[in-house]
């Protein structure tokens, strides 16, 4: 039978350790956190701390771009979480750096729900992926990737409305007219061939 004083001491130790455990769960090594639920991460965080997140469960959100690459029962998708993942450049006319994303390997049935992939004409579907992050997956030639366990569409993509082209149209016609005048002048005065 355990001494009451010992039991009391045990309670005190557990109570004292609890805040510490909570703090380490929230801010500590992601590997500890990822053994349970996935922690939400960005592509920059994954690329810069790939070793820390290796083979841990992560949650990642972003826009599907390029193409869904079907491979038998599975598929590869590229998911960008950069500035443009929620704002298409043609709609907002904003530039904020290059693209940044991670490649996701998933069951094709998960990817089948994707209707729009990001391109010049479209804003791609935004997806939430939960899966295991690999710094270097031995089954896929050492690629850095997330192997998805679940994938859900959190925001539908759409066709992008075309921007105004009036200024370009005026500029092109004006310059075309000048080029034509120069061409006629050159043709009349020169007599010699460019070739």
């Amino acid at each position, binding site marked *: 039978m355990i001494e009451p004083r010992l039991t009391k001491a045990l309670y005190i130790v557990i109570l004292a350790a609890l805040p510490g455990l909570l703090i380490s769960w929230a801010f500590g090594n992601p590997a500890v956190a990822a053994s349970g639920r996935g922690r939400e991460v960005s592509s920059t965080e994954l690329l810069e701390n790939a*070793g820390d997140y290796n083979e841990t469960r992560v949650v990642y959100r972003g826009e599907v771009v390029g193409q869904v690459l079907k491979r038998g029962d599975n598929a590869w998708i590229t998911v960008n979480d950069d500035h443009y993942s929620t704002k298409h450049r*043609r709609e907002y006319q904003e530039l904020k750096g*290059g693209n940044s994303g991670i*490649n996701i390997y998933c069951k094709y049935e998960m990817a089948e729900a994707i209707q729009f992939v990001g391109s010049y004409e479209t804003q791609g579907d935004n997806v939430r992926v939960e899966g295991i992050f690999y710094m270097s997956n031995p089954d*896929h*030639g*050492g690629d*850095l990737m997330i192997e998805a366990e679940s994938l859900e569409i959190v925001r539908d993509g759409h066709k992008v409305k075309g921007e105004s082209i009036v200024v370009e149209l005026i500029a092109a016609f004006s*310059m075309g007219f000048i080029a034509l005048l120069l061409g006629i002048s050159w043709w009349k005065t020169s007599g010699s061939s*460019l070739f």
Partner: protein
Amino acid sequence: MLVRPRRSDIKIIIRNVGKVVIGLGVAMAIPMALSLCLQEWKPALDFAIGIFACLIFGMTTEITCKTGEPSSWGSGLPTVALSWLTAMVFGAIPLYLSGHFGSFLDACFDCMSGLATTGLSIIQDLDHLAYGTNLWRHLIMFLGGQGIIVVVLTFFVAGTSGAMEMYRGEGREDQILPNVISTARFIWTVSIVYLIIGTSILLVTVVNAGLPAGKGLFHSICLFMAGFDTGGFTPLSQGIIFYHSIWLELATILTMCLGMMNFGVHFSVWRGNRRELFRNDEMKTLLITVFGLVILTQVGLSRLGAYPNAVAMFRKGFYQVISAHSGTGFMTIYGNEFVTRWGPLAFFAVTLAMGFGAAAGSTAGGIKALRINITARSIWGDIKKLLSPPDTVIVQKYHHVRDIVITNKLVHGVMVITTCYIITYIGGALVLAMYRYPMAEALFESTSACANVGLTTGITSPGMPALVKAVFILQMWGGRLEFMSVFLLIGMLVAIARGR
């Protein structure tokens, strides 16, 4: 003493530059046609503006710079250097108008990177770029790789006066056929045939990777132009990683290997002389340096345990060494992995591969295998001389299509160019170090720019300082033209400024 060029020489130079710009404008019709087909109206108008700008400039030079006098010696090389700078400015117009660049300097950076077949890029939001503009990025790589002067020689120059100088000015060593125009046309014939075959092979691999046929055709054309011309641009921001296909990696390795070969060797093989592939000393040098650097990379990666198995380690390591050595810059890893995972030895091996470059007379940049071979032979010759009796005459030769005697003049020329490359590699790194970039990464990035490779650790980005962008543009320009044309242009400008 600097000789001030005659007024007629300046006119000839400007007129020839105008012809190059007209040629560039004509080339813009290809991406414009694609944009029109795909109903990308704004990019189509961007190209129309670009075409008209080129025509206005070209016509103006045609009208104002007429001269009946023949060109004097020495005007060919400055023409080349000036043509490349002017082509950069005009080629950047549709890129800038696309709205994917923070400034015109950024658009010029990508245009020079394309023309010089470097592959470093500071485009923003590439993944939402129009097809037409994306094709233009790759097409300028193809034009620059073959040499825009070669384009002009092929289609715009009737006579051969000054043509040889212009041809050599683009860093080409070999005149394959007796006539330089025929040589230029042969280069284009070879390139078009390879384009058709290479694109077909790549199309099979990208469709196999999961792309639909139409999009696959676009990707395969772009990848071929970037690979064969050792450029390194890719249609999407993820680069070669996007495809996750070993077959595509193998096909691009083949493309890069074709691109890193000397056109003289291509010509010999085309003429049925396949033995040249094995007899050519430049090819042997390439084989030795590639093999040595692959070993060095593998040792470096295995010591760190960077990859989970030998297959993955070899796949990544081998690809990056070939990509670096050929001057292509295709990446199957993320840029920061060079720094965070590859460790100093493998990182150094890739830097060395970039610095060495591929074959002379290929589309690659860097010091070039032929120069490394001649340098090594001349050092060995000096050692043999020291160990031999005083009167001994040592004659050294190397085989490059034919046997060539290594003379002091040849070695001097090789040393001058090699020194220029090394100074520029270090100079660029020092500029980066001024902005507090780590020295090893700065040297990597500077070598990548000057040797026209395009691998990056992540330093090259839209946010880097304007001075660094300008220095990289100069490095890419000088490195691609192997410096002499640039020096002559500077000399000519100084002479004009002095007024004598």
